[in-house]
């Protein structure tokens, strides 16, 4: 009796198709609750504009040559992109990984860990695109965005989403209890929100904070988005873009490597 194995030649779907199928799964699940999931980015900017823009703006003069409320309006298209991607790839990922066992199922089909996580990041990026676009729409209704170039803002949101998806997946790879994410949100994302030139410019800040802000990914996203909103471009933006791309690639690779170890035992 010889021990030959029946060989079956087969071709699994292409990488693009596999990644798209992961993206599509998340898209279908997300849009099931479109109203509760999709409404916040339209409402939140109103609170910001009225609460801070009008309230505080009354006491603030021109910033970089524009009204404070305008300065703020351009800035707030970015943080929702950060927060939605961060939530998706921290709490969301952890729940899919540990509680709902969604990844177990997906990885049993013809998907590998890399497909899964790249799909995850692209979906988070897409959500961020949508969130930035929603905020842009709202602030535009108040005629606070002077340049039509602002239409590219959601692209900045998409890049922001990819950065924070990669970073959050990387963080998630260390997390064993869902409560650990509190450190990430309170310790890293909240300060980033305040010290990345979103609500006030960094130029008047102490030198230490200005240097720290250069390391924050959100700073670079804010720079790019604001440039489009006010149609004022400078060579500095190449550095911002380079930072963003390097950040996505480095943290993306680290996250995939670390989570692969966790998912493939």
């Amino acid at each position, binding site marked *: 009796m010889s021990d030959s194995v029946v060989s079956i030649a087969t071709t699994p779907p292409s990488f693009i198709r*596999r990644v798209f199928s992961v993206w599509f799964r998340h898209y279908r*699940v997300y849009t*099931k609750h479109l109203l509760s999931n999709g409404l916040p980015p339209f409402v939140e900017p109103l609170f910001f504009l009225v609460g801070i823009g009008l309230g505080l703006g009354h006491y603030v003069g021109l910033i970089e040559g524009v009204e404070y409320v305008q300065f703020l309006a351009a800035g707030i298209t970015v943080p929702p992109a950060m927060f939605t991607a961060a939530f998706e790839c921290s709490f969301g990922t952890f729940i899919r990984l540990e509680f709902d066992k969604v990844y177990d199922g997906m990885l049993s*089909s013809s998907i590998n860990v890399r497909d899964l996580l790249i799909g995850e990041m692209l979906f988070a990026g897409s959500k961020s695109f949508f969130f930035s676009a929603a905020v842009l729409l709202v602030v535009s209704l108040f005629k606070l965005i002077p340049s039509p170039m602002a239409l590219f803002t959601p692209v900045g949101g998409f890049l922001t989403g990819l950065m924070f998806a990669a970073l959050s997946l990387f963080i998630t790879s260390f997390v064993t209890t869902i409560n650990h994410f509190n450190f990430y949100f309170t310790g890293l994302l909240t300060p980033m929100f305040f010290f990345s030139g979103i609500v006030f410019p960094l130029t008047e800040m102490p030198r230490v904070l200005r240097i720290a802000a250069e390391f924050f990914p959100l700073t670079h996203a804010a720079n790019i988005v604001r440039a489009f909103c006010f149609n004022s471009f400078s060579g500095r933006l190449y550095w911002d873009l380079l930072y963003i791309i390097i950040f996505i690639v480095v943290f993306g690779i680290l996250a995939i490597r670390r989570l692969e170890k966790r998912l493939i035992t």
Partner: protein
Amino acid sequence: MEYAILASHVTKKFKDLTAVEDLSFKVRQAECFGFLGPNGAGKTTMMKMLIGRCRRDNPGPGQISVFGYDPVKSELEIKYLAGVVPQEDNLDAELSVRQNLFIYAGFYGIKKTTAAPRIDYLLDFMELTDKAGSKIRELSGGMKRRLIIARALINNPRLLILDEPTTGLDPQVRHLIWDKLRMLKKDGVTILITTHYMEEAYQICDRLIIMHKGEKVLEGAPGDLIEEHIEQYVLEILDRESVGDLDTDSRIRLEQTDSRVLLYSDDISVLEAVTGGYKAGDFYLRQSNLEDLFLKTTGRYLNE
């Protein structure tokens, strides 16, 4: 003989635990092959190694081939040819029954137009057509299991891997699932199943291995194993206290639990002679089964 799966000398150690130790087995095409063993015997780990979710210890003599593919190198090819029914339910609760299947069709790159009739067929096959539009939380445990099996069949797999597929289900559902598995086998699907229901193994497995602490202890067809490795009859005496000196007879093998005494013998008349001293209802004389063999080979004590 042509095989669907060959595994030889596979070992998998986690930090301080050897999950699978020098395990070898061969699975024929279109047979139902069972992995039996107590919790922690290494069954699930072995299944995971076949589809690349778990990597066998390397370097080492271990080899695995599934339809000619090594799971370490060609995980996607194997998974493309296989369907997996996990131990735990992991359906997308937000989506309907039909949508759950559509999403999985996507993972295999199946086009919508091809997927739709396939989904209709599978819903009918698993008797879920009425539930096509239902939400997952509206389904009973048995329906969820059936849906997960349907999901594992979406890509028309040549190999179906089921990890304890009927745990916690009522007898009706269990029998339905067994029937469906027999039908799939007839269609040429190779089936791999882990279970600790001996009835299940006896009903549907052509061949099986019994694993214990990561090692293979027995291998063969269920009927042959019972014939070769355990006495034909067993007398259970339900009240342990009332048993006197019995262990003197060499034709009887004795096993004791906290409350019962079990007497095994190939000669039914020897056991019948023993029953003379007891009232009906105090004893139970029967043919031995796979469960007796299982307990004999893996021990009666808890393995955890």
